[in-house]
């Protein structure tokens, strides 16, 4: 890994394979993570505080109460899914901080993507549970699922993204190599 200073912008760390985070990565992902964190906190509050009633229909297909009080709302019958979601989004929010996006360590870069892949796996299970086991859909849960999907998409693209000006940098580098001739 090396640090390359580009004229006109702050020096950005670059990974060994030339990757560096796109400038849109942290604002977009952090915003999504904060929205997901907020909804997860609301769902957790509603889980523990019976005076908090989710603003959501309680009849028909869309029935938040039916979902959040179902057997599937508890992992192994002990840990509320809402709490798991809140904990997950706390970790995700930290992972989307600009300081961690600037960190080009493979552990951070691919770990962040792994975190989103794991979250999406859980989302697919929860969607399955809502549709086929509980037979109801929770609007707030669906909002969190959608945000998780958008985060997966943006994080995945940002993880493999190589800015076009890096190609120009590489061309400069190629010229230098060509000047030096073959080893």
């Amino acid at each position, binding site marked *: 890994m090396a640090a390359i200073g580009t004229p006109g912008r702050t020096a950005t760390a670059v990974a060994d394979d030339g990757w560096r985070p796109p400038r849109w990565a942290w604002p977009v992902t952090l915003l999504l993570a904060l929205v997901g964190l907020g909804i997860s906190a609301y769902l957790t509050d509603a889980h523990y505080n019976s005076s908090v009633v989710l603003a959501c229909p*309680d009849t028909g297909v869309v029935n938040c109460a039916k979902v959040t*009080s179902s057997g599937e709302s508890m992992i192994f019958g002990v840990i509320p899914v809402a709490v798991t979601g809140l904990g997950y989004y706390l970790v995700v929010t930290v992972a989307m901080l600009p300081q961690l996006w600037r960190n080009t360590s493979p552990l951070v870069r691919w770990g962040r993507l792994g975190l989103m892949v794991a979250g999406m796996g859980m989302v697919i299970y929860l969607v399955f549970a809502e549709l086929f086991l509980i037979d109801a859909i929770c609007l707030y849960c669906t909002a969190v699922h959608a945000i998780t999907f958008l985060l997966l998409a943006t994080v995945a693209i940002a993880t493999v993204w190589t800015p076009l000006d890096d190609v120009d940098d590489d061309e400069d580098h190629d*010229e230098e190599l060509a000047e030096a001739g073959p080893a």
Partner: protein
Amino acid sequence: MSSSTPRAGKKPDRATKAKIAEQRARQRRADRRRRILTVVGSVIGVAAIVGALVAIKVTHNGSSGSSTAVAVSPAPAAVVDKVTGVPTAVLSSVGAGAVKSLPQPIQGDKLTKDGKPEVLYVGAEYCPFCGGERWALINALSRFGTFDNLKITQSAKNDSPSDIHTFSFRDAKYTSDYVAFTGVETQTSDTAAGPPAPLHKLTKAQQALYTKYNTGGGIPFLDFANQYASSGASFDVSGLQGMTWQQIADQLDQPNSDVAKGIVGAANALTATICKITDNNPGDVCNTPTITALQKQLSTKK
């Protein structure tokens, strides 16, 4: 080797350098495009999985008219705690509540299990009246012992009243120093393929009791050690329709709610009956004004 390839030690001309740079740039652009396409393809794949789930669900519902699949899953601790932990003050305040019928005396050899008087329940998961009665029965039996592995489920959606959110005794374990309990759920709530699917099978002895003491053949059927029996729900369960497990559970400690009057009132009546077969043990459960008053009605109230 191409004529444009520089030889070792010789400085490449401007055209050669530009060509090499362009080739490498092209290669990098291609790599970048391939990586992004891979990611975009994967993301589309994930979206397709979710879309497929939704499509299957919509197709399934469309072909069957309405969903008949009913889940059976572990009961959330928050719900179990509420139904098994109704405060004593609420039990006293509700009293008989909105109970509509009490178990009737029957004659027979005392039904026992492991040396304790036995309560036999025969019902089915699809049955809405069983669904309502289970709430009361779990509350009553929890005063004498402990349930483990309770499940939650719903009564059939195409029955009336429909879709009562309730428990199932299908895998439940009950332990008590005073009374034994056997819960038999003869059928599930799954009516997707026609009649509800079979679940538990009555033993010959249970079938004999069911036939002898339940001449009407209705469920839920309760046999209290062959000393008392009841058939049908003890209260009007239609008030539970449209409520979730948590919503029902949350009203159990509100003595003026219709839910508490129905479920807790019925549970008090069942408790009074169970106390009859345990010789009023334990005392702190059976020797209360509420239970004593209900016991006086047991042989007279229809």
